[in-house]
């Protein structure tokens, strides 16, 4: 995973609350292999009408929007479905960071697992950033070490869990980290199954029991 320290590129304002993962990527696109590139599906139904015609006014259709790396939005971003495809859509589009007052829990950990920074700011700070960005892609600066974001004259600080910050700064991957604990896990599993023997999944003798 590509580490993040500083992002200095274009940011876009998505001035809406509750941008859920169903909006970030509609379910019908999720049967595609990742290799097709999920960026094309990002916010598809929000930025196209029912005939698939792009809404020219939508922020992602503005000139230079395809160079944007940072998205600023309102509260409860990425709520809902656990679909990691929502993060793939953002990442494949080119985003490295989303800024919002709050995130869906599962979305935020999916983001970190894919090198996308979920930066939490106060609600008023989000409004200041949205106002500073306006309705066209604009310059934005995000510093993960200092935990601050700057757009023109507006500078705000953001929060992120220290564990996630370390992972993102180093581009670490969980599976590699965990495999270093393989021995501890084996010991735990033996102890656990002795203490809670019934948690072993015993296949049933008769397969079907219907109970109302």
């Amino acid at each position, binding site marked *: 995973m590509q580490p993040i320290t500083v992002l200095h590129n274009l940011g876009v304002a998505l001035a809406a609350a509750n941008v859920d993962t169903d909006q970030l990527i*509609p379910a019908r696109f999720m049967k595609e292999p990742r290799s097709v590139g999920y960026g094309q599906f990002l916010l598809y*139904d929000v930025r196209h009408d029912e005939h698939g015609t792009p809404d020219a006014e939508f922020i992602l259709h503005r000139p230079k929007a395809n160079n944007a790396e940072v998205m600023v939005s309102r509260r409860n971003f990425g709520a809902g479905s656990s679909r990691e495809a929502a993060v793939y859509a953002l990442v494949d589009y080119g985003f490295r960071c989303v800024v919002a007052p709050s995130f*869906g829990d599962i979305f935020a*950990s999916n983001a970190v697992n894919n090198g996308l920074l979920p930066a939490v700011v106060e609600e008023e700070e989000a409004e200041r950033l949205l106002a500073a960005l306006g309705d066209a892609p604009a310059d934005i600066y995000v510093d993960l070490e200092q935990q601050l974001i700057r757009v023109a004259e507006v500078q705000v600080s953001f929060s992120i869990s220290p564990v996630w910050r370390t992972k993102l700064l180093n581009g670490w991957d*969980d*599976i590699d980290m965990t495999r270093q604990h393989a021995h501890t*896990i084996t010991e735990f599993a033996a102890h656990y199954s002795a203490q809670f023997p*019934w948690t072993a999944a015993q296949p049933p003798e008769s397969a*079907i029991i219907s109970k109302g």
Partner: protein
Amino acid sequence: MSTPTTLFDKVWQAHEVHRSDSGQSLLWIDRHFVHEGSFHAFNKLAERALPVARPDLTFGIADHYVPTLARDLAGVADPKVRSMIEQLSQNTQQHGVTLFGLDDPRQGIVHVLGPEQGLTQPGMVMVCGDSHTATHGAFGSIAFGIGASEVAHVLATQTLWQSKPKVMRITVEGQLAEGITAKDVALTWIARLGADGARGYAIEYAGEAIRSLSMEARLTLCNLSIEGGGRCGMIAPDQTTFDYLRERPWSPKGDAFDQACAYWSTLYSDPGASFDLEVTLHADEIAPTVTWGVSPEEALPIDRAVPDPEQLSDPAKARQARDSLAYMGLTPGQKLTDIKIDRVFIGSCTNARIEDLRAAAAILAGHKSRVPGMVSPGSTLVKTQAEAEGLDRIFIDAGLEWRHSGCSMCVGMNGDLVASGERCASTTNRNFKGRQGPGARTHLMSPPMVAAAAVSGRLADVRTLTAGSDSSVQASGAH
């Protein structure tokens, strides 16, 4: 005496394999469910040439993409949908994982099947690449949804890194009145606290009203924890739980069951255990509730009117309401019972268990639905049971389609969609924009409320309907 401990902490502590310097815990996973959407995770595993660490604790379920018209893969028109179901079969077979596939008589939606088969048990930590995994917490387990990278991690290691959430308790005092369901309890607390009101918290549901809920109603309540932003939802196991689990296919048997039961009986929040947040509701404040907007927090008792943004003093709320009303095609201040519907859907892991179908059938019996609609049972076993009770006849006679089990119109991945601009009264869990199809308008409510909407052709108060109906309709409810 040891310090009073919450139910959540007891289960968490028993699963802590390791705690890192940064305070993250590596948790042991007792049950891991995978479905068609888990192909990304299996691909990640393949990239690293890793095996599934514990195929015996991993279970595959075909639900998200399965057809509901027939149990026949050849009849699936979209080759990509077919391939999703096939990939699950291949991946589970390759790794020696038990599969509840399309043609399995035990097939069902993962969160219906797990409890039904006795795979879900108290005191476990359970995960699945689906946010409604919180459902299984109804048994007193910690159960939560995870993303594809985490699914790959669990497949490879049978463990998961987690930061410990805060714990909140939602207590519902008193007894729920007739016609008020677990769905109404959930929509009420979510409307009150907001769709991110429980973000960062594990929820424990407690109180007299919760204790009185059946196992199935508890599953509905815990299922919706995620719609209020909760990491998971739990209910302390009790006699209701143990009775449900006895003799389930994968439940422990004989002495092992008694041994397990003795442990399960210790799983409750000790008196004096402290919670990071306490919320109390009174059962008599809870009315049949429906959503009017595009977030589960936009819910109101059925006898109310949708908001008028002009009357809202908070500009953020007014803006959100304006946007939601526009998407939903509603007039500010419109009475909920004046909202006409185009179709109904009874299904999903939230509300398609046998008790849900009975409750809906009780309202529909002897009536015609004024709109088209579909009933998709939560599992194939629920379907069989419903047919044995004659519920299928009630739905069909009312003019609704009786389908096979799957996620179906909850998410539309299999092609069961609400048309653009259509308004659907639905027993599902998400009224997000486009959730049931591009441009679809969803109103969430309980199964009896969907049935009431079906016979009225508009959103309706089930209480006024049952009050005026004859006793034969009531009797067929078989509660």
